[in-house]
């Protein structure tokens, strides 16, 4: 079966597109799928850093598009997960170096060899966004439970619908359950109420993400990380599995409850 192209986008910057791309890619590859990520953010690349592959870049996407390198040469294979590869963006060029039809061509060349092709879209709704959306079979929209991020996500969903790329699937990132409980943060329901698209996953706020991002080792590699678990669930839902949404209570509360139960039982 030819590979599926999934684009991760958001409109607003800083909501966690790159982190989500890296973690979903790791989760899919760890489950045995062949995965390649493409960094669509030409000029402001980040995905290589988050995936910890920065020091192995020789050729990039623009080299491939302009014929200086073959796809295979630009592809960096992750040594921790042999089924995971990255095609990095160029840092010294800008979005205009690649066109939507270049992206479609590159993805079509990749489809026979991979199960999943994940594209990390840049923020905004201009050329870089259009490049990233052009080859997509499926679009994931990442947003935070913040009014401004939701507003931008709504705009992007409208553009995706206009380009006839389906409604898109929602990934709600950085949810702080204590704030939601106090009524100080939009809840999942509030966000879905506005955006009205299917929900693919909810990622709890987790300091571990920041640490793992800086270290270049995505949280989904860590079996114990809760946000990593949420990303692994997203990967399974992408594959069509029916995975129940996990409760958002943090680990400590859960352990405390467990401890309480033991003391009662004892």
């Amino acid at each position, binding site marked *: 079966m030819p590979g599926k192209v999934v684009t991760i986008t958001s409109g607003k910057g800083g909501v966690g597109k790159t982190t989500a791309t890296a973690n979903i890619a790791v989760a899919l590859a760890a489950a045995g799928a062949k995965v390649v990520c493409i960094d669509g953010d030409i000029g402001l690349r980040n995905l290589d850093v988050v995936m910890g592959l920065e020091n192995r870049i020789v050729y990039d996407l623009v080299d491939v598009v302009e014929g200086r390198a073959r796809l295979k040469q630009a592809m960096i294979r992750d040594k921790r997960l042999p089924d995971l590869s990255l095609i990095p963006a160029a840092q010294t060029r800008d979005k205009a170096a690649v*066109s*939507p039809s270049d992206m479609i061509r590159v993805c079509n060349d990749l489809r026979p060899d991979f199960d999943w092709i994940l594209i990390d879209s840049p923020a905004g709704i201009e050329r870089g966004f*259009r490049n990233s959306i052009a080859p997509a079979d499926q679009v994931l929209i990442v947003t935070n439970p913040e009014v401004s991020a939701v507003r931008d996500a*709504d705009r992007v969903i*409208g*553009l995706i*619908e206009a380009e*006839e790329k389906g409604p898109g699937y929602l990934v709600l990132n950085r949810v702080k359950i204590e704030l939601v409980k106090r009524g100080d943060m939009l809840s999942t329901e509030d966000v879905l109420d506005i955006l009205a698209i299917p929900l693919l996953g909810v990622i709890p706020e987790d300091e571990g993400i920041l640490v793992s991002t800086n270290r270049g080792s995505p949280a989904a590699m860590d079996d114990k990380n809760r946000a990593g678990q949420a990303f692994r669930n997203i990967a399974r839902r992408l594959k069509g599995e029916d995975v129940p949404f996990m409760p958002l209570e943090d680990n400590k509360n859960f352990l405390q409850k467990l401890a309480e139960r033991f003391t009662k039982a004892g």
Partner: protein
Amino acid sequence: MSDPITIKGIREGLLVTLGDGENWIAVSQTLLERIDQAADFFKGAKLALGVGPRVLSAADLGRLRDALSERKVSLWAVLSESPTTMNAAQALGLLVSLPANTPAARPDPEINPEEARDEAVLVRRTLRSGRSVRHGGHVIVIGDVNPGAEIVAGGNVVVWGRLRGVVHAGAPFTTLQGSSTDGDDGAVVCALDLSPTQLRIARYIAISPARKGEPKPEMARIRNGQIIAERWSAKGK
């Protein structure tokens, strides 16, 4: 057969008018070939495209826009007689009319402002942030109007859904002939959940008070010089 494509210079750049009758794939392909033949001339050009009565989807227009942008030609306006095509162009953020006092692609048909006021457009989808519906007559939406979307109507606005964006009913509308009506104080806005970011009727402006309790269908109108919203009830109407 006459030339299916005419190109002329206007103040904003180039105006390309596609003749009727030709199928879209063929005529857009011919246009791209024409541009390729004179790549230097077209490089960096701003293009307004007159497509006549053709019914085109946003995907059709998006493909052409992308093909043009690869040739360093930017598509900035699509002029059409088809509401579907105009909607599609607006969805892509393209203009659907040239700024005033530019010679239009074709002479505008005579429109009587009074008649135009009585026409309505029906939008059967949710308007998301960034979408704008402008119409000289009434606007009816079956779906939500999300924050960041706007409706400007010369007549009344009815939203069968949640109205959270900006809405202007009875707007002073410039007609195609350039004459302007004064705005209609008698226009109303109704919605199942009336909580717009901002509500305007004619020259009056109001913002929604914070809502208490469950949303109820409401209608806003001008009474004694200010905008008021009232619960809509079937009784006595």
